[in-house]
């Protein structure tokens, strides 16, 4: 009896594991890794979309290059920096609003009242509506001439004249953020609600018996307890918001005021058919998100360590 053969059943099981993983890994490699690698590669060439064969290697020219004393490339393009600023504003503001509003909604949903079931269902509606549809619905409501939002605000006397919510450069980004908040808050609310429902009842009983004001209870009891869930929600949503595309593109197209990194990259890539530069813009977005992910992970680990101590 060879001693080496003593784990053949275990080995067979591990082989099975890889066999059963293989199709998923293969597909994921084809749809994620390969395209990502190609995008990376294309970003170093002057390829045009659909004609990568004739591409020439240009190094980092698409990113940044100095010619005759002048800087060229994406990183020298004010438009890219504008897109970065818009994207960061969008992500920070919308996620902050979603978390505050989502927590509020979750608290309401966690209370006992007659129409709670109906309410929980209603919360899912904005989440279920396709992004493109939400974008269109709100674009219509925000229409400068025939929109109901202007009509309502005029009737209430809050504005003196109709506003061009989506065309006005000062308002457009905020309008888009408002729509994102409407659409995504339910998701945050559901996560927070799930966390709230796992809280032990007895803390509250104790607090109620002690006659502590509910607002105080929220800040000193509830909030610390749901903090981990909130952090997860914030990270998920933030990394998601950094990639925003559909909503912005459908509501305001390629307009500068709302140009985000995704919209910008697609514009170069598809509209200008410039695969080299477009890929470079995509890679930059990828790098920005990767950096933020790492930061988030570090923050989360710090949180976990902090809790242990």
């Amino acid at each position, binding site marked *: 009896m060879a001693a080496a053969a003593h784990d053949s059943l275990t080995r067979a099981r*591990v082989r099975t*594991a*890889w066999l*059963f993983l293989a199709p*998923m890994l293969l*597909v*994921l490699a084809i*749809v*994620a890794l390969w*395209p*990502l690698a*190609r*995008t990376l590669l*294309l970003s170093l060439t002057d390829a045009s*979309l*659909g004609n990568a064969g004739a591409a020439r290697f240009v190094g980092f020219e698409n990113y940044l290059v100095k010619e005759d004393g002048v800087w060229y490339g994406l990183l020298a393009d004010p438009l890219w920096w504008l897109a970065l600023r818009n994207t960061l504003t969008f992500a920070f503001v919308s996620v902050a609003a979603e978390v505050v509003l989502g927590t509020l*909604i979750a608290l309401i949903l966690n*209370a006992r*009242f007659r*129409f709670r079931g109906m*309410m*929980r269902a*209603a919360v*899912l*509606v904005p989440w*279920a*509506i*396709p*992004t493109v*549809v939400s974008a*269109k*619905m709100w674009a*219509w*409501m925000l*229409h400068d001439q*025939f929109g109901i939002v202007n*009509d309502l605000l005029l009737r209430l006397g809050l504005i003196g004249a109709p506003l061009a919510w989506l065309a006005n450069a000062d308002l457009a980004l905020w309008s888009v953020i408002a729509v994102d908040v*409407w659409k995504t808050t*339910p998701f945050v609310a559901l*996560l927070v609600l799930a*966390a709230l429902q796992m809280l032990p009842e007895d803390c509250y009983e104790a607090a109620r018996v002690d006659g502590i004001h509910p607002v105080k209870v929220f800040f000193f009891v509830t909030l610390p307890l749901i903090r981990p869930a909130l952090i*997860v*929600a914030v990270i998920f949503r933030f*990394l998601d918001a*950094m*990639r925003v*595309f559909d909503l912005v*593109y*459908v509501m305001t197209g390629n307009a500068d005021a709302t140009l985000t990194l*995704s919209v910008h*990259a*697609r514009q170069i*890539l*598809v509209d200008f058919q410039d695969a080299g530069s477009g*890929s470079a813009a*995509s*890679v930059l*977005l*990828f790098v920005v998100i990767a950096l933020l*992910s790492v930061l988030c992970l570090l923050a989360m680990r710090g949180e976990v360590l902090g809790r242990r101590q």
Partner: protein
Amino acid sequence: MMALARAVAFRLLVAALLAYLLFPFYYAVITSMKGGSAIFSVDYWPSQIDFSNYARIFSEQPFALNMLNSVLVAFAVVALSLLLGLTAAFSLGRIRFRGRNALLFAVLAVSMFPQVAVLSGMFELVRAFGLYNSLLSLVFSYMIFTLPFTVWVLTSFMRELPHEIEEAAIMDGAGPWTLVVRIFLPLLWPAMVTTGLLAFIVAWNEFLFALTFILSNEQRTVPVAIALITGGSEFELPWGGIMAASVTVTLPLIVLVLVFQRRLVAGLTAGAVKG
């Protein structure tokens, strides 16, 4: 007195919240039923019941075809991601091997990929496979969204199933494939419904790939079709038609979500809270 005031205030808050959540869809429904020039007046209540907008999107546009495309793509995506996700979840949730956690983490990392970062590479691939302007390109490319969470959610559910049932089946002579199909699949079907539904919604709603990889009106899926609806002439407002189309594609989704409310919430929070 205080208690009453509080109760009234709470009711008002709930009512306001309900209005905030539901009004846009309600308004889309009203708008979709306005014909002719009624669209130019702002109404808070239904002023007309006129289905001409609905008739028009189906007669003047290939909207029925777009719906069919969306349905085909969504079902194919659900079937494929469940199949791949289930087998992968069996390995990741049930078998110990080195690198298992690293793999799970890598799969999660893919779900953080920005879509545009793979756009040019994917475009090449789609052309290389001869799938440009074909629905298959969408089925294939949507795997990048659906696989990561399908694998995660199914793995976390798979881990919770008792070991002894699997061992009993092994003693009965079940091989891995039999285990997956005849033991785990039936036991996991609630999780499968949840993840399938999430995958369906993702596929039904996707926009960027559908916009980029599909050229002809007849091959388009619904979101792109809606985004590209324009009026018959430059002076005609297309909003009636757009709202009709929006309501048409959203209603089935809302029904689906309301019916499977509990399962969906469980799936959404399982993915996030446990992960």
